[in-house]
């Protein structure tokens, strides 16, 4: 029995549309990646990793920005990870089925998608204002606040995946709860939690909005986190918006390094995570 032509036509149209939509989505990805890679590769020089951000019209590198970004990301990990793991532990273990855990889980999801510029404003109001000046510490705190909900979420999810038999076996040995969690559950969930932290790093590495008025920027070499600190995203922003060609070139080089870092980290995490689930 043949399907009437009209119904078949509707079917073909719908599926052509779905295929086109996918091509459309992938098209932008490749266009944006191609632009970044071709413009950035042309701008890559050894000086990029050896010289400081230049004044307008001169050539230079981004070494101070790389340093500043790395320092703030590391500090953000150090601050955000323990709190995130502890909170995720409460949601999945200590506070399972409690109303508080449900509320925190809900709010955490909202923090996860909260506009990052608002987080920048919050850190400005709380930290920059009370310190009296922009600082790398403020920038790191803003990044930590973006990292935190991601770590909470992945910790909660990965602890939930640990089978209950592991907990029961631990309790049967007479271990107190905190030892079961720290010695058994964390070990089982370890790689998933690390994956979450790495994905969070990939996310905060490119965050610009929360750094604009917390870490600000610094044209000079400064290792102190207690003052304005150069960082890759804000340098890219300022240089791209400037009228100088040399600065545009440097912005593309920065964009190239940043994008490669973020995408490679994402891919590496995926490959490792897949291997982990297969074995």
């Amino acid at each position: 029995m043949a399907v009437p032509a009209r119904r078949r036509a509707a079917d073909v149209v719908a599926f052509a549309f779905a295929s086109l939509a996918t091509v459309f989505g992938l098209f932008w990805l490749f266009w944006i990646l191609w632009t970044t890679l071709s413009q950035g590769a042309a701008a890559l020089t050894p000086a990029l990793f050896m010289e400081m951000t230049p004044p307008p019209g001169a050539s230079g590198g981004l070494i101070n920005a790389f340093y500043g970004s790395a320092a703030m990301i590391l500090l953000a990990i150090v601050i955000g990870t323990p709190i995130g793991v502890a909170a995720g532990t409460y949601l999945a273990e200590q506070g399972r089925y409690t109303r508080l855990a449900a509320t925190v889980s809900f709010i955490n999801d909202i923090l996860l998608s909260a506009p990052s510029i608002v987080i920048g404003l919050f850190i400005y109001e709380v930290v920059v204002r009370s310190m009296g000046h922009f600082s790398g510490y403020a920038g790191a705190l803003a990044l930590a606040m973006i990292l935190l909900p991601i770590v909470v979420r992945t910790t909660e999810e990965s602890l939930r995946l640990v089978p209950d038999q592991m907990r029961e076996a631990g309790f049967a040995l007479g271990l107190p709860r905190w030892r079961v969690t720290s010695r058994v559950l964390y070990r089982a969930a370890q790689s998933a939690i690390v994956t979450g932290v790495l994905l969070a790093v990939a996310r905060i590495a490119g965050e610009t909005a929360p750094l604009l008025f917390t870490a600000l920027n610094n044209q000079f070499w400064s290792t102190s986190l207690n003052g304005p600190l150069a960082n890759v995203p804000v340098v890219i922003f300022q240089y791209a918006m400037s009228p100088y060609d040399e600065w545009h070139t440097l912005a593309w080089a920065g964009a190239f390094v940043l994008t490669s870092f973020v995408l490679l980290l994402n891919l590496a995490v995926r490959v490792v995570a897949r291997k982990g689930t297969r074995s």
Partner: protein
Amino acid sequence: MNGSLTQGREITVETPDRKSGEFADRLFHAITIAAACFVLLLLGATALSMAWGGRLAFKTFGLAFITSSDWDVPAGKFGALVPIYGTLVTSAIALLIAVPVSIGIALFLTDIAPRWTRGPIAVAIELLAAVPSIIYGMWGLFIFAPFMATHVEPWLSEHLGNSPLVGPLFSGPPIGIGMLTAGIVLGIMVIPFIAAVAREVFSAVPPSLKESAVALGSTRWEILSRVTLPYTRSAIVGAVFLGLGRALGETMAVTFVLGNAHELSASLLMPSNSIAAAIANEFTEADTELYRSSLIALGFLLFVVTFIVLTIAKLLLMRINRQLGRTS
């Protein structure tokens, strides 16, 4: 006798150890509960500090802060209508593009694509979400805006600029920087977020439902429109709200291509402003208390609106998760 005595002694040796275990347990519990409460506290503190920082603007201008389009820095007059309007219009354009495309992608990945291509395509779409927004912004400024100015916008203003109904939307000089370009870039950005959730939701439709439809002789399109979409409707709306939450608060992608203009114009081809872009562009230049307070008040509005939008999204998505038997 002797043996049981030793055992008794051993127990007395163990008792203090157990007590210290109890103490450590309580300490551990306290630490995790404190961390969990800290997350709540952060959100509350953010809302409060925005409201506190913006109080001067709200007190000075009252409701006019939202209804006035005056943004006159030297005169100290701040009305947020233009950024609010720009935020809403660009987000609307973004959703207009992203929603059908995302649903198409989700459908393609669950029902059409050959099985071996599904994984790689899904990863590619997810990478689109991982690209930092500042890269979208740069690409928008240097590549996409000139492309719009030379190829798309002249055509739009020529063919649609004089039509009676939509004419005002497409009139004006084709400069490439403006609400239309910003909306399209935003749309590309939110596609992966909506597509990822929609795909997950589609794959949660019980196979028996689809199989029954197949048995009744439905085409694949009929399965989608009469089974899958009705079954997943609320979750799809949730996914759209999630995308809307992203679009409203997105800063860098928009700041580059919106033009930072404070004039209200109907045309989508004209430069405009958004809440996030205004804060990003002007906050470090704000030299008076009132100016800074007005920008923080803008941040407060943005925060409240995205909070509501994301809450709706989460509530709608929770329903399908419950159907899937998940707790979160």
